[in-house]
């Protein structure tokens, strides 16, 4: 390894690392979408204090928030096949990416549930009382009155969560999934220029994070201005 650090190599490695970016994005997008849907149900179960489910949700959220994602990843990786074989499903031949997707979805669901719960409860109770008083059902009041207000409140935190999900997704390589990080590692062990490969991966992550933040600030502004225009009408 003659030279300490070769800048040219970073640009040489960038295209090959970029070619695995779809795996990273797949993890982020799928975990966000499914996590949001699951998160809404968990948040509602907690807000309406559905018996038993409420306590399970509290435990679940506390566990996910209190343990490192790397530990969750390996518990799913080693534990899920054991549980599923108990009910007669064999997933020993599953692609490792699936375990990653399951973990990140479960993780995101817990964080999204807390964000959504905070946003929904921050909408004043007068709003739902007003909705009930004009004869709306619980579902109508939620769907038409509470949810639209809560979305605006939740948006900034959802954005922050998605950016940290992107960063957490970098741990998928520990299971041997070839995403951006995995490719950087593979290049490192193939060419012995480990440093340059990882720096190239870091550049990709920085650009992705900045891009995500920009997208969210644009969406936030749009939602807020839409609301203001809507109110003035």
């Amino acid at each position, binding site marked *: 390894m003659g030279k*300490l650090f070769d800048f040219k190599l970073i640009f040489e490695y960038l295209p090959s690392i970029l070619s695995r970016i779809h795996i990273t994005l797949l993890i982020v997008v799928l975990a966000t979408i499914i996590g949001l849907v699951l998160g809404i149900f968990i948040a509602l179960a907690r807000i309406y204090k559905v018996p038993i489910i409420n306590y399970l949700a509290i435990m679940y959220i506390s566990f996910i928030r209190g343990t490192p994602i790397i530990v969750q990843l390996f518990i799913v990786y080693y534990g899920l096949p054991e549980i599923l074989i108990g009910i007669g499903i064999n997933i020993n031949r599953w692609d490792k990416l699936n375990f990653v997707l399951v973990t990140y979805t479960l993780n995101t669901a817990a964080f999204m549930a807390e964000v959504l719960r905070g946003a929904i409860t921050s909408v004043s109770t007068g709003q739902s009382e007003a909705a009930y008083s004009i004869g709306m059902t619980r579902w109508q009041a939620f769907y038409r009155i509470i949810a639209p207000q809560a979305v605006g409140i939740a948006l900034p935190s959802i954005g922050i969560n998605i950016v940290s999900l992107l960063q957490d997704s970098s*741990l998928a390589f520990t299971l041997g999934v070839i995403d951006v990080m995995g490719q950087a590692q593979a290049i490192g062990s193939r060419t012995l220029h480990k440093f340059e490969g990882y720096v190239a991966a870091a550049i990709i992550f920085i650009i992705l994070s900045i891009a995500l933040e920009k997208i969210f600030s644009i969406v936030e502004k749009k939602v807020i201005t839409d609301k203001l225009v809507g109110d003035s009408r």
Partner: protein
Amino acid sequence: MKFDIAFMFVALEAALRYTPITLMLATVPLIVGIVFGTLVAVARLFKIRILGSIFKIFVVIIKGIPLVLQIIIINFAVIGPVDFLAEKFNWSFASKDIDRLYIVLIAISIFSIVNISETMRGALMSIHKGQYEAAYSVGLTRLQALRRIILPQAFPVAAPVLCNNFIGLIKGSSLAFIISVTDLMNGALITATSNYKYLEAYVASAIVYWAICIMIEKASVVLEKRLNLCSKEVAV
């Protein structure tokens, strides 16, 4: 294969034995982060020339890199030059003699400074502008205003977020395994290398992490109550 509860307790004991390392890997960066993070936040808030914009770029770049990548990069950034120099000058000292623990400490500290600077910036910005103006109007300098008026108000605002940052550091310290530092998680895993009961080892470390985080959360609630009490008394 079944879940071996007896073995889980063996792993649990090992995890507990290495818990001080994990606590150290989170507490030192927390303190470093509070000190330097506040400085960075103040420099950015007052838009101090050059330094303010340098910090801004620094924060954006570091925030964009996952912690695991930061640890790996800093590891190489230390190892490469040390070995290079050692070879050149025939030192008996080489990179393998450096305790990896320090490398992880540096990496997590940088991560912590950036995150806590964002926390402190938010807290500082939440203080009403009138407070600064009032402090200046009675003749306090910028530093005096900060130390006596602004920071005492900003810290209670920041306290709950700082507790969250601390939890993040505890969880983040688990990534020390990537350069084979034996912390809580790795300590538990070592017990499983001979019998491949990794699930039990991971569950054991999850339990310890969970317990630590719940304790921090409980402490955070108590701290918040105390701080609220203090600020109320002052207000009266």
